[in-house]
């Protein structure tokens, strides 16, 4: 029983720390920044950068 109580307490503390992190994240600020940007760039596209084969044979990179 003592072990179970200790295990439950450890998980409670761990999850409490996660909840505190989730609430302390500046979600509002990030949403405002994104909204401000999406007023300029109305057709949003995720900023992806996957490898491409284009031009690779003709370019020399140090």
């Amino acid at each position, binding site marked *: *029983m003592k072990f179970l109580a200790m295990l439950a307490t450890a998980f409670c503390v761990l999850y409490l720390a996660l909840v505190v992190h989730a609430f302390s994240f500046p979600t509002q600020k990030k949403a405002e920044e*994104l909204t401000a*940007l*999406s007023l*300029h760039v109305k057709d949003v596209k*995720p*900023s992806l*950068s996957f490898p491409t084969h284009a031009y*690779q044979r003709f370019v020399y990179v140090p």
Partner: protein
Amino acid sequence: MRTKGLSMFRKNFVEYAILLLFKDRNDHLFSFLIFSFIVFILSSVLFISDSLQYDLIQSIKAQPSIVVENTRAGRAYQMHEGYVYDVSKITGVSGVEGVVDGYHYFAQKRLWFHIIGDASLAKDEMVIGQGVQKAMAELYYEDEFHFLTEERLIRVKINKIAPKGTNILSNDAIFLNPNTARAVLGMEIDEYSKLYVSVPNPNEVGNVALKIVEIYPSAKATSQADAIGAVRHVYYYKGGIFMILYVIALVSFFILLKNQISLVYGEKKKEIAILRSLGFCIKDIIALKFIQNTVVSVSAYLLGVALAYVYVFVFNAPYLRNIFLGSELENSISLTPVVDLNLLFLIFLFGVIPFLAFVILPAWKIAISDMSEAVKS
């Protein structure tokens, strides 16, 4: 009195189960670690996918009713003033705005930069994303950048860096005055890459999109709902691939677990036989194994989910985020904590319950077998 005695018995029974768990800790450690790892990987992928979807869908809400893009021979092709005039004459359309948008190849680093026209900027200045800044800084472009086009070299001052919170959209972006953007992309002064069409009545959006495609069959008209659908599709697809891998990994794990448990319980047949001879019935033996494995599986699940949260939202998912965002341009994105409790419950249901079933079945099989033989051996 009877209730107190019963609860004491239960308490002692649970303590005995935990004591046995500690005694056989090496047998349980394997299943605990593997199960935690599987839950960790799946939860991480779902957390990343949900967080990216959340930010993108938030941003799409400011999107115009319809975005029109032209194609020729299957490739994006520019539009001229005639398109703006024709679309603005369609009934239900309140305004049409032509915009410049395209990709510039930065050959020295083999990267594509997303060029976006922004009328609020002066001709010789630009705002860049953080990934672009890092790529440019590596080649000592810190205050200004030289766009190398077919005709000439265009020098533009780096005015500002987009904030980190917008990295999901701006990491590979360069915001330029529309005329400078046209010069960089090799477009004429009255040409546009896209048209933003405003339709005040949401019920008319579908009809207007159809009319645009009727007038220009090579054009593509994307409504806001289509854009949201496309984002969801991309992330469901990638999440789906992981879901398939997860199912394969989980099934393999359960088969392994069943074999291991059968072997271990086979060795412990004598122990079970002694418990039976002490007066434990089959139900008690199953309860004993149930308590032990509930502690193992629930702890492994909780640990897996917590580690996934820390990995994704505290450390911003190094390596795994590249599957969703690409790795050519460094993206120091901060993922918004979004936790879908329904999905976590689903993982619990399809993880912990089969885990218990696969462990209890061999225990039951041994408990119902003939115990006199086991005691004699």
